[in-house]
């Protein structure tokens, strides 16, 4: 069974109810290599490690067939907003 982008989107959507989800197939067409960005309320109050664990768990069924999964972003809605509004990083 080849895991498609749609499979990944479906699995993440049902487990994490993301307010933003981007899944990019990075395999060049042969499947099973993905970059993902997830914004979900379920990440609230959780460290990055725990957020990645949630994503891994959501894809547990597909994981054996996925060759590479890169979780580019795992953010809460409140973290996502300032990032999407300010394209340039804020000067501190």
């Amino acid at each position, binding site marked *: 069974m080849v895991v498609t982008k749609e499979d990944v989107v479906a699995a993440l959507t049902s487990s994490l109810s993301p307010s933003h989800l981007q899944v990019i197939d990075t395999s060049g067409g042969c499947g099973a290599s993905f970059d993902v960005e997830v914004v979900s309320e379920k990440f609230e109050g959780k460290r*990055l*490690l725990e957020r*990645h664990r949630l994503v*891994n768990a959501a894809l547990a069924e597909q994981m054996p067939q996925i060759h*590479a*999964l890169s979780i*580019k972003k795992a953010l809460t809605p409140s973290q996502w907003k300032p990032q999407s509004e300010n394209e340039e990083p804020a000067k501190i």
Partner: protein
Amino acid sequence: MSVVCTSSSSSLSTLLLRRRSLPVGSEVTTFFLIGSNNGSSLVVKVVSMQLFGQSLKYSTKISGDSDTHEDFRSTNKLEGSGISVQDVVQQDVKINPVMIYMKGVPDAPRCGFSALAIKVLQQYRVPISSRNILEDPVLKEAVKAFSNWPTFPQIFVKGEFIGGSDIVLSMHQNGQLKELLSDIKGDNSKPSGE
């Protein structure tokens, strides 16, 4: 295996089994006779080496001074009370401040994610210990079970599981990694380019 040794209390006899051509996970046990209490019992130091890929892990125990002969029995510590693969992982992360289980070796990673993680960690000039999980499927499964994490590389700092390459990169970018590694002795704990 039979062992016949006579030893004065001051001499040290060594029996070494050749480790070449042994399968991964097999164990080499060396007996050092370090004393003789009376005519019938010996004090024996047993050093066990377990083979995992190209690396060795050591464990040492010293027997009591009775029932010596039982100690000479061939042992299989993987099934018995000795070190298991899980113990090896536990020891790895305990002993090594920065431990990475990866595909390939630091000088020649065999996966882009492992290469990325190594590249990031090397910027901090801290000692990095690694194991190549491609060489050892048993170890690979043990590490996955230990951390409850499905992919490699896996990075442990000061005994704690940190995550995979995405997390290490993210912690590198937001400064958390610098903070985490700051008290680990190295040539120079500052990241390059600062």
